[in-house]
Every structure is written in structure tokens, then in C-alpha cells.
């Protein structure tokens, strides 16, 4: 029961981060918050019992965030 409670709290945290990403107008901060999203997902994967997947998610989350931030130099930083 304790593990399920922690999983539920982490999922609620993920939902809150999603709402922030949708409502934000600054694309640079959305990308950095996506890195936090990836970190919470990684902890969630460990709770379910998949450390291999968590390892991969940790590394790939950082690389994905770097892609988004680097490609922001050409596209706009602010959205309407």
C-alpha cells in the first residue's frame, strides 16, 4: 500500500508538470521543465521494478532536453 501511494503521488506530480508545460509561454523553460518530467518518470520506473528502463530513461531524457534547447536557437523562444 505504501508503494502504491508513492506511485500515485509521483503520477500526480507528472500531471501537474504536464499542465505547466501546456500553459507556459516560454519555450526554453518548457524544455527545462521537460527535463524534470523525465527525472520524475525515471523514479517512477524504479518504483515499478524496472531499473534497466530507468537507466535508459535517465540518459535519453538528458539528450532529448539538449536537442530541444539547441534547436531553440533557430526557432523562436517565445510562443503566443
Amino acid at each position, binding site marked *: 500500500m505504501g508503494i502504491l501511494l508513492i506511485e500515485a503521488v509521483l503520477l500526480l506530480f507528472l500531471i501537474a508538470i504536464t499542465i505547466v508545460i501546456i500553459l507556459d509561454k516560454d519555450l526554453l523553460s518548457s524544455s527545462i521543465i521537460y527535463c524534470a518530467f523525465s527525472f520524475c518518470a525515471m523514479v517512477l520506473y524504479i518504483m515499478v521494478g524496472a531499473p*534497466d528502463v530507468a537507466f535508459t530513461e535517465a*540518459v535519453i531524457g*538528458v*539528450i532529448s532536453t539538449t*536537442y530541444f534547447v*539547441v534547436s531553440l*536557437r533557430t526557432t523562436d523562444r517565445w510562443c503566443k
Partner: protein
Amino acid sequence: MNGGRSKRLREKSVFKIVGIVLLMVLVGLMFTIVDRLPVIGNPDSAPNRHVSDYYIEEGPELTHSPNLVTGVLADFRGFDTLLETTVMFLAGVSVAMILSNRLKRHWDAGIFRKDENFGGYEVKVIMPILIPVIIVYAFYVLMHGEVSLGGGFQAGALLAMAFMLYIMFADLGKNKFRITQHFTVCVAACGVFIYFLTGFLCMINGGRFLEYEALPFSAEHGAELHATGILMIETGVTIGVMATIITILEAVVERNSLNGRS
């Protein structure tokens, strides 16, 4: 002009309200179906029967790898991993092709502005310590993929991350040898080729494609050849994934420079 703008705002908020209503309807629909999904944690539920018991019980002996996930990924389902590496390579090729047209204004731009220098002493001292540690850890993860957690994908991504750190902080004007996206795409192809080569080696020696027992190396039991085969294909996967990630990064960074916004 003003009438057009307020009409667009009204259309946009109507769109959002319709979206929220549809979202709640869909979520409600899914809640009624949740009843039929398997119970979390039940060892007898449908996904945990049939093949998985065989993989768990016979896996460590047949594939000679205590890490069951690597055993399933590289031995029992090796064909899936082969095609996945090919898909990664195709993604690298696509990015290199999409971002390689040259407009007229690109031909006069300069690449890798040489006067940009991040050199504080933190960068000069920390980066030479950090990057070799990451590379050594990546090789450890690759070699130990069978025994403990790890594997080819993680090692390839770690190597690419070490390269990314180097690109971000080094003084690139001093390099005579530039690593471009066209070079790393060829390296990714080499990685996929190593994977295919392992499969064909098994066929040459009389086995089926990717049947590790027929590898032309000598070993005491047949199961040890499985470990050699898994190591060879994980090397192929590592090289493929690392080169694809570096390709995408290099293509995007070079396009930034050509657009004048580096």
C-alpha cells in the same frame, strides 16, 4: 483588422473548451474500461503467463546471462533489436538529409565561430576529469550488460553524452579534424553492419541467422558462445546509437551556425 483578431480569439477559446469537454468524455470512457484490465501485481494475470515463465526459468542457463532483460533483448528477441538499430540509423540518415540543403545565404556564413571561449579554470579542470570518467563508465556498462544492469543502448547514449560535453565547452578552433554529420552517419552504418555480420557468421558456420551456438569460436559449453554473441551485437548497437545521436546533434548545431544564430 480588429474584428478579425477578436474573431480568432473567440474561435480559439471555443476550440479549447471543446477540447476540454472531449478530454473529459474520453477519460470517462476509459474509466469504464479499466474494469477489464489485469490486476496490478497478480502473478497469474495474462501478461505474466505463457512465455515469460519460460524466459525466467530457462533464461540464465540457455543464454548464459544473469540479466534477464539483456537475455530477452539480445538472445530470445535478437531480431527485434536488429531492426530497431536499423531504425535508429535511418533516423540519423533522415536528419542528415533534411538539414543538408544550402540556401544562397548559407554559402557565405562561417561555421564554428572560433573566438568564442568558455575557458574559465573550472572548465579547464573539471572537463578533463569528467569526460574520461564517463567514457570508462560507458565501457563498463557495455561489458557488464549481461551480468548486471546495462546493455548496448545505455552505453551508446553515455558515449554520445561525453562527446556532447566536449563540443559544448571545448575551443573548437584548435581542431583540424572536424567531425561532421556525414562522417558519423557512416560510423552508424558500421554499427548496423557489425550486427548483421554476427548473424551471418552464424550462418556461415552452419547454423541459422543469429543462432549463437554456431559461432566459429571455441568454447567449453555451447552456452558460453551465447555470451560472446551477445557482446558482439551489443557492440554493434552501441556504435549505432552513439553515432546517430552525434549525427543529429552535429546537424542541428551546424544549421544554427549557418543561419547566423550560433
